[in-house]
C-alpha cells in the first residue's frame, strides 16, 4: 500500500494554500515529504525553482520550510527560549549556547505574536495552546518562506484562533507561502487563496477558493455528492438514568456540575477547548474520581472511583484520542471489542464467544475490516472509532459517553456514526456526546449542555442555533 501516488503540488509566494482530505488521504505523508521527515520513492522537490536532491529536516530548514505540528513537537524539559533557539538556529554541536541572546530573541518573537509567555519558563509548565503559540513563534522567527500548519486550531480557544488568523495573514502579506491543513471548512474559506483536495493518496484537484463551494469540496473529498443530514430523533426520552448532583473534582478543575440524562436521550456537551468537557467525562467514568457532589444512577447514589466501578454500573466512555486510548492498535478487532468486558474479573478466555460478538458488531456497526482478526492499525479512523464504540456496547451499558466521536473521521463515516448514535439512543441508551463540531451538536442533541471554566454554563433545548450555543460557550448573553 502506498500512502502517496503521483501527487503534484505547488505553493506560490504570498498565498495560503489549503490542503484538504479525509483521514488517510495522504496529507500527513505529503507534509512529511515536504519537511524532509520522509524521503519520497519517486518524484522531485523544488524550492524556489531549484531541485533539492537529498532532502532531510535540516535541509528543509535551510531552505526556509517550517512546520507547526498538530501536537507541538517541543522539548518539555527545556525552556521556551531554548526551544526556540534549537528550532531556529540549527545550532552546531560544538558552539557555545548564548543564553542571554536566546532569551532576548524569544521574548521579542513572543511579543510579536501577542503571546504573554515568559521565555525562561519550562515547556512542561505550558498549556497546549501556549505550546502551539511557541511553535508559531518559531515559524515567525525562522523567517520561513514556506510555513506548514497542520490543524493549527485544533486546541486553540476562540481568542487564540483570531490571533492565529492574524498571524497567518501577516505572514502571507510578507510574501511567505502557507500550507494550511484543516478539517474545518469555514476556516479554509476564511483564510485560503487556493485549496487542494487529496483522496486515497492522489490529488483530486486544485481550485481557487472563489471558484468552489462547500458542497463541491465535500464531493471532491468523498468522491461523490453527499448531503449531510442528521438522522432525526425517533422517540421521546424516557426515565432519568444518569443524574449529576453538584459534581466536582479539584484535580481536574470540574466544579458544581448538575444535570440529568434520560434513557433514549442524547445530551450534547458543547464548549471551547479547556472548558472541562473531557475532564467531566473522566470524572463520571472514574478516571479522575469526583471529590465533591455525587452521581445518581437510576435513583441510587453511586461512588465511581475507578473505571471498573463505572463499567459495573453500566457507564461507558468512548475516549477522544482513539489511537492512544480508544483502541489498542496492535491487537485484533475481536480482542479490542471484548477488552472492556474483561475488566471485571479474572477468568478464562472464551474464543468462540469473543469471535461471535466481534462478528455481530462488524455487521451491525458496518465496520469495514478484513475480519475479526484484523489489527486495529489496519483500519481507517472511522472504523477504529466504530471498534471503540463496539467495545463499550459489548459491556451492555445504560449510559454511553462519547468524546468527540467524529473528530478526524471522513464525511461518509461521520454520517454512519451519527446514525449509530441515534439508533443506540432509540434503543434506550442515555447518551452524553461531547463535540467541538457545532453543527453536529446542534443536529444530534435533544438538549445541549454548554460548559465553560469547568462548570455547566447553560442547558439549552435541542435545535438551539449556533449563535446561542457559541455565546453561552464564550460567556456572553445571546443577542
Amino acid at each position, binding site marked *: *500500500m502506498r500512502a502517496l501516488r503521483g501527487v503534484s503540488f505547488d505553493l506560490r509566494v504570498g498565498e495560503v494554500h489549503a490542503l484538504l482530505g479525509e483521514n488517510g488521504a*495522504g496529507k500527513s505523508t505529503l507534509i512529511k515529504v515536504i519537511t524532509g521527515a520522509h524521503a519520497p520513492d519517486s518524484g522531485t522537490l523544488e524550492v524556489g525553482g531549484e531541485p533539492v536532491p537529498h532532502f532531510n529536516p535540516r535541509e528543509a530548514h535551510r531552505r526556509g520550510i517550517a512546520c507547526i505540528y498538530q501536537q507541538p513537537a517541543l522539548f518539555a524539559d527545556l525552556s521556551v527560549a531554548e526551544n526556540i533557539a534549537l528550532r531556529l538556529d540549527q545550532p552546531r554541536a560544538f558552539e557555545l549556547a548564548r543564553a542571554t541572546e536566546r532569551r532576548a530573541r524569544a521574548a521579542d518573537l513572543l511579543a510579536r505574536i501577542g503571546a504573554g509567555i515568559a521565555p525562561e519558563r519550562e515547556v512542561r509548565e505550558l498549556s497546549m495552546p501556549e505550546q502551539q503559540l511557541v511553535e508559531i513563534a518559531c515559524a515567525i522567527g525562522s523567517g520561513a518562506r514556506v510555513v506548514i500548519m497542520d490543524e493549527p486550531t485544533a486546541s486553540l480557544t476562540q481568542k487564540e484562533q483570531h490571533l492565529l488568523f492574524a498571524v497567518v495573514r501577516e505572514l502571507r502579506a510578507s510574501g511567505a507561502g502557507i500550507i494550511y491543513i484543516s478539517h474545518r471548512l469555514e476556516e479554509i474559506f476564511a483564510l485560503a487563496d487556493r485549496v487542494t483536495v487529496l483522496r486515497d493518496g492522489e490529488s483530486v484537484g486544485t481550485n481557487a477558493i472563489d471558484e468552489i463551494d462547500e458542497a463541491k469540496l465535500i464531493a471532491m473529498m468523498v468522491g461523490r455528492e453527499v448531503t449531510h443530514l442528521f438522522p432525526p430523533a425517533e422517540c421521546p426520552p424516557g426515565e432519568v438514568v444518569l443524574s449529576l448532583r453538584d459534581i466536582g473534582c479539584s484535580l481536574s478543575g470540574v466544579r458544581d456540575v448538575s444535570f440529568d440524562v434520560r434513557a433514549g436521550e442524547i445530551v450534547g456537551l458543547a464548549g471551547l477547548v479547556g472548558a472541562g468537557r473531557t475532564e467531566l467525562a473522566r470524572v463520571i467514568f472514574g478516571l479522575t474520581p469526583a471529590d465533591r457532589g455525587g452521581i445518581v444512577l437510576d435513583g441510587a447514589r453511586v461512588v465511581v472511583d475507578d473505571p471498573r466501578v463505572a463499567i459495573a454500573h453500566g457507564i461507558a466512555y468512548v475516549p477522544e484520542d482513539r489511537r492512544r*486510548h480508544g483502541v*489498542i*492498535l496492535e491487537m485484533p478487532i475481536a480482542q479490542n471489542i471484548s477488552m472492556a468486558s474483561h*475488566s471485571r474479573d*479474572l477468568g478464562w*478466555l472464551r474464543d468462540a464467544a469473543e469471535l461471535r460478538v466481534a462478528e455481530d458488531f462488524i455487521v451491525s456497526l458496518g465496520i469495514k475490516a478484513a475480519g475479526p482478526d484484523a489489527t486495529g492499525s489496519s483500519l481507517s479512523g472511522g472504523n477504529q472509532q466504530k471498534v471503540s464504540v463496539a*467495545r463499550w456496547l459489548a459491556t451492555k451499558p445504560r449510559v454511553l459517553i462519547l468524546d468527540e466521536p467524529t473528530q478526524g473521521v471522513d464525511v461518509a463515516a461521520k454520517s454512519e456514526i451519527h446514525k449509530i448514535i441515534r439508533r443506540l439512543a432509540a434503543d434506550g441508551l442515555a447518551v452524553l456526546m461531547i463535540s467541538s463540531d457545532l453543527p453536529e451538536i446542534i443536529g444530534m442533541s435533544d438538549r445541549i449542555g454548554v460548559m465553560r471554566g469547568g462548570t455547566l454554563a447553560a442547558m439549552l433545548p435541542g435545535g438551539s442555533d449556533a449563535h446561542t450555543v457559541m455565546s453561552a460557550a464564550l460567556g456572553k448573553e445571546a443577542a
Partner: protein
Amino acid sequence: MRRFWMRHEMVLLLVIVVEVLIFNAIGRRFLTADNVANIVRQSVEIGLLALVMTPVILTGGIDLSVGSLLGLCAVTFGMLWGELHWPPWLAALGAVGVGALGGCVNAALITSLRLPALIVTLGTFSLFRGIAEALTGGTIAYTKFPASFLALGNSFFLGVPVQAWVFFVVAVAVWLLVHRTTAGRAFRAIGFAPEGARYAGLPVGRRVALAYILAGSVAGVAAVIFVSRVTEARANAGVGYELAAITAVVLGGTSIFGGRGSVHGTLLGVAAVAVLGNGLSRILSITAVSRELAGILTGALLLVALAAGALTTRWRGAGDRGPSA
C-alpha cells in the same frame, strides 16, 4: 502476525535440533539419558525464572531483581532450616513467602508510585543481594540438609528428575495464565498501550502487580530447588540468572517492548540456551573455560536475537506502513 511467530518458533526449534546434532556428533556422551537429565536439572531454575519473566516483559516491564531474590530466598531457606530448625517443607514455604514479599516490593514501587520498572528492579537487584550478603555475613553457607530434601534436586520420579515435575506444573500454569485467561490478555494490552488499557477499564495496576509478585514467588520456588540441587544455601546463589532468564525470553520471541510473545517461545528459548551451555562443556575439557565461553555466547546470542527482532520489525514496519499515517 501469528504466522510470523509460528515462523520464529520453528526457527528456534531448528536451532535446537542443529545444536543437538552438532554436539552429538562431536561431543562425548551428549545424547545419553544421564546427560539429558543433567541438562534438565541445570536449566530448571533459570527456566522457572524465564517462565515468570515472560508475563513481566509482556506488560512492557522488566525484572532485574529475580536472580538476587533467588539468592535472598536461598539464604532465607538456609536460615529457617539451619538456625530456626524449621522442617524443610516449612522453610521452603517461608522462602517462597519471602520471594512473594520481594515481588510485592517491586510491584508496589512500580504500580502505586509509577516508577520505571528498570530502575526499581535495579535498586532491588542490589538491595536483595545486599540483604542476603548481610544476613550471612558474606561467608556463611548452610549445608548438611537431610537426604529427603536433597532428593528434590537430585533424584528421579517416574524416570524424570523430580524438579522437572515442579517445572512442568509451573509451566502449564503460566501458559494457561498468559494464553487462556483475561489476565494474560490484559498483560498484552498493557504492554502495547498502558493508557489504552486503563481507558478500557482494565485493572492495570493489579495486573502489573500480579506479574511481579508471580515472578518473586517463583524465584522463591527456584531458590529451594537450587539449594536442593547444589546442596548448600549461600548468598551468591543465582548470580547472573536474571540475564539468562531475560535471554531465554527474548530468544523465545517475546518483544522486549511488551505486548508480543508466548510462553512456549520462552520454553524453546530456555532449551536453546541450556543445550548450548551443556554441549560446550561436553566438547571442551576445561569446565571453567566452557562456562565462560557459554556466558560469552549467551550474551552474543541475546544481542543477535534482539538485532534480528529489531531488523524484522523494521522491515515489516516498512512493509505495512499504510495510509493511516
